[in-house]
């Protein structure tokens, strides 16, 4: 083959490779932070594509979306425009785990996101397949496309999703492909290997899409959205937010489904041993579920629309890599799908990804300056996880170029911090998904207070807008005022007041009580106590929610704050990246090995590396103190 003649196609601050959820956030962040940015994608039609489930949010994930929004990211704003059903999950549980999940019109989401990208003044969109990364003296200098275009840049963000050497499996059939029938990226993997970056195989899967008119909904349970719809973006909070909602449906597999799968297991590439990739436990294929939980007679199946302008329906819960004919037979055994017609088959996809422990907490490669990685290439899964990483990579690329301090959120500040710390410190053996159970400080990291936690940070780095910042300040002020007021308003033990309390199912009072203290009683709420609060100001829903949460869970939150304080102490002890741990006396051999490989940025991060013991951490603390004193002594000389 003739060698492609290369040419200089442009000079940029940042090149973003990939236009999925990670790429979109990364490119918008750098552009909005003043960096001249180009986004390269193999296909402009795949911008912000959702090749799997048609929803955004859910437990843990919803938290991420709110945090992205609070920092000045895009996902929440766009999904608020493309939302066709909204539900707040876990409302029966505590406020910390309330999670927003909405159904997306996929096409609309793509179109809206593309519009935002196109309108961004500092951002160029360009179709093209990146096949090489230019690195000189340990620093990234740009990328090369398949057609010979060289884009020089100060930073490169790789957000390639599941495209790297993508391979689709449907029964005995397998072929090179990206998701949703898009082309795979077969050449970039080799470029990464040339840079000494190891690759491994992960897999994921998706169910079939079926024709709406061939479904018998009368046999299914309808699943409507919430009556009161809450927007994702804090910017839309006080607005009159309205959407036209469409329902989803719930149905079940049958004994026959199980039988069909069991009879055809040998034709599944997973069980025939043809796939090497590791799949996620939380998102198993239907054949996985049948094998692992043989006692379960039936499994849930959700039918969800892919959008308003299409009759394609997503069949949640039945992802599979069985042969096409088996899939069709199996789907027809599901209640209500007896006459179903397939539009797209279910498939499993295998792809290359990196071991994320080679990254810093900024998502920059530890050895190659200004080369960033974000999204599924890092071994994560999910649109929201990808977007969160894209945002952090984008912010840090911009800060690096500006020569400013890196932007790192720790585990006590955000789910984003938990996500990235987990990935780069512990690594992952399966596609990583966010869950609230992964967050140690769940009570303080709520989706309702993401703006209070993060917007100021986003504003300081120049990403969150002035308007957003002011809005958050106002919210803070209102909450504090109301908390103060509730502390001041005393309820006296009059006969009348006690009668009201009794009616509310609460015990009488003998001494004056502040409203603040009364709200603490489990049986009382902020709303219920309105009867004893004549001059209560008319506050927005989100403020009332914050006030109530703050008071009700004060004790628990305080406990968590103490834990966070402890946690921060080690987190604030910074370790230099160029430290050779074998020179530190007293570390165990295993610790030296792990620490030299991982190069943690703080003693806190070091303490989370497996194989590093509390004794090793003590040794590190003493070492740091030695260094500090040596420095002091030298400066005294």
């Amino acid at each position, binding site marked *: 083959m003739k060698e492609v003649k290369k040419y200089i196609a442009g000079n940029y601050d940042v090149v973003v490779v990939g236009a999925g959820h990670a790429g979109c956030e990364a490119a918008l962040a750098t552009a909005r932070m003043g960096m001249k940015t180009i986004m390269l994608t193999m296909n402009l039609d795949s911008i912000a594509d959702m090749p799997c489930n048609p929803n955004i949010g859910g*437990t843990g994930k919803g938290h991420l979306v709110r945090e992205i929004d609070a920092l000045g990211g895009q996902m929440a704003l766009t999904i608020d425009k493309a939302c066709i059903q909204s539900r707040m999950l876990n409302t029966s*549980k505590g406020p910390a785990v309330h999670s927003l999940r909405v159904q997306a019109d996929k096409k609309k989401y793509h179109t809206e996101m593309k519009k935002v990208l196109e309108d961004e003044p500092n951002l160029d969109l360009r179709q093209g397949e990146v096949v090489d990364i230019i690195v000189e003296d340990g620093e990234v200098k740009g990328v090369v496309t398949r057609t010979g275009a060289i884009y020089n840049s100060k930073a490169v963000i790789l957000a390639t999703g599941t495209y790297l050497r993508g391979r689709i499996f449907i029964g005995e059939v397998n072929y090179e492909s990206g998701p949703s029938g898009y082309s795979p990226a077969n050449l970039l993997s080799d470029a990464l290997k040339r840079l000494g970056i190891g690759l491994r195989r992960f897999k994921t899967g998706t169910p079939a899409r079926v024709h709406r008119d061939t479904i018998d909904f009368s046999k299914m349970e309808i699943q409507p959205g919430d009556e009161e719809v809450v927007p994702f973006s804090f910017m839309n909070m006080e607005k009159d937010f309205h959407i036209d909602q469409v329902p989803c449906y719930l149905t079940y597999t049958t004994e026959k489904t199980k039988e069909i799968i069991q009879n055809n297991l040998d034709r599944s590439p997973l069980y025939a041993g043809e796939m090497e990739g590791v799949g996620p436990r939380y998102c198993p294929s239907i054949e996985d579920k049948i094998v692992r939980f043989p006692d379960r007679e039936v499994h849930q199946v959700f039918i969800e629309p892919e959008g308003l302008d299409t009759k394609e329906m997503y069949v949640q819960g039945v992802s599979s890599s069985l042969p096409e004919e088996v899939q069709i037979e199996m789907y027809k055994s599901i209640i209500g799908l007896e006459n179903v017609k397939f539009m797209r088959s279910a498939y499993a996809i295998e792809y290359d990804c990196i071991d994320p422990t080679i990254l810093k907490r900024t998502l920059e490669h530890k050895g190659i300056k200004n080369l960033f990685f974000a999204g599924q290439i890092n071994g994560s899964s999910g649109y929201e996880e990808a977007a969160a990483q894209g945002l952090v990579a984008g912010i840090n690329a911009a800060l690096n170029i500006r020569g400013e301090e890196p932007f790192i959120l720790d585990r006590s500040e955000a789910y984003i911090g938990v996500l990235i710390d987990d990935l780069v410190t512990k690594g992952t053996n399966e596609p990583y998904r966010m869950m609230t159970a992964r967050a140690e400080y769940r009570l303080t990291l709520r989706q309702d207070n993401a703006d209070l936690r993060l917007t100021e940070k986003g504003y300081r780095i120049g990403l969150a807008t002035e308007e957003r910042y002011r809005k958050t300040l106002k919210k803070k002020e209102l909450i504090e005022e109301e908390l103060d007021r509730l502390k001041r308003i005393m309820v006296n033990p009059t006969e009348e007041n006690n009668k009201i309390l009794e009616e509310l199912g609460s015990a009488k009072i003998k001494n004056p009580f502040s409203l603040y203290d009364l709200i603490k009683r489990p049986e009382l709420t902020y709303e219920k106590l309105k009867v004893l609060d004549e001059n209560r100001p008319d506050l927005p829903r989100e403020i009332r929610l914050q006030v109530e949460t703050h008071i009700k869970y004060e004790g628990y939150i305080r406990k968590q704050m103490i834990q966070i304080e402890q946690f921060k102490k080690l987190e604030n002890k910074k370790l230099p990246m160029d430290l050779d741990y074998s020179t530190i006396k007293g570390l165990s051999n295993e610790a030296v090995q792990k620490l030299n490989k991982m190069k943690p940025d703080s003693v806190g991060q070091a303490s989370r590396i497996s194989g590093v013991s509390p004794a090793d951490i003590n040794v590190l603390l003493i070492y740091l103190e030695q260094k500090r004193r040596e420095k002091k002594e030298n400066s005294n000389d």
Partner: protein
Amino acid sequence: MTDTIAAISTAIGEAGIGIVRLSGKDSIEIANKIFKGSKIDELKKAENRKLTYGHIIDPKTNEIIDEVLIAYMKEPYTYTRENVVEIYCHGGIISVRKILEAVLESGARLAEPGEFTKRAFLNGRLDLAQSEAVIDLIRAKTDKSFQVSLNQLEGNLSKKIREIRNTLLEMLAHINASIDFSEEEDVDDVTYMGLEEKARLVKDEIERLLKTADRGKILRDGLNTVILGKPNVGKSSLLNSILRENRAIVTDIPGTTRDIIEEYVNIDGIPLRIIDTAGIRTTDDVVEKIGVDKAKDMVNRADLIIAVFDVSSELADEDFEIVEIIKDKNAIVLLNKSDLPNKYDKDYFTELLPGKKIINTSILEGVGIDILEEEIKNIFYSGTVNIESDIVVTNMRHKNQLVKAKKNIEDGLEGIKANMPLDCIEVDIKACWENLGEISGDTVSEDILDKIFSDFCIGK
């Protein structure tokens, strides 16, 4: 370093005095809570760096633990450059342990290995060269305590702790599954009743373990060892022989009756509390009967019985009674006076007491004592010692963790009863789970996720 740490600063064992030391901002305040002076009623009122006489009072029972001399030293002119209190009490094991417990109960935290020295260094008290020594200290002590944790004796405790943690893990997995996968059909709702039941179970188990710590078993009081045998078989000679060769820890324990002699001895690191019974003899004499009843009581509570028989004379009814008593117990059989003509042999006893270790001895000649000691060690390290509850908390650090765990599960129970939301309750349950993990050395939170995925069919 805002918390206050405490530890026993003198070596455990034979010593005239023992020292318990506190360091940290609140150390004077904490010591003040448990100290009652005779002239100066409050420690705070005493002079800096001067010894004061008084008593340490158990904060739970208000009883006197020991008479002591106490001194506080104000920062920064102390070893650690923090407020330091030193309590000088009677030596041996019991006094220092009880005082340390009282201090911990009153707000101090047990010091980690080398922590006083570490603080001294971090607060600028030691120079750089000395800091090397600090690292060695941390390393050495940790490695040692690591070895200890591998010890079979603690194996039983770890096993029990893991059992309790498993219950907690089930609760955590269920709560977290119901939060993170609320729409999965397989994840049924967590009921508060179910949670309460499990939390109570956990609380009971922790309390039971704490009781074993309070009773002060093995490493604190020694392995309860009873020497049994009819008169004149050589019991006293055996006791004297063991005492002669080994280091006696405490020789004078108040409360010893005239019928029962208690001795503390340390055989290669294994502390024994040896009880020489006045002899089991059926008697109608009321006065003597009390002594005999006591002996039987001792036998029932023993961790180990050494039964001595006179092989030079025919077995008497009393001997058969002893055989009966030790049948189902942890016992070593000594066939003494084996230098004299034997009336029966080892095989005869093997039939009587299958599975028991039988040793031919001549205590007066010093024959077989080494084998006996070897066997005691075997029994101790192989974990066959069948201590009352089978599980003992001997380590103060462990006890400390258990106290924390108990507090957390109690908070959790309170939350459950008050119908607090699951994510709040989870905070306490998880804290309890982590406290216990510090004991067994398992603290990986990934376990919760593994449990969720193995127990519940997750995956929409």
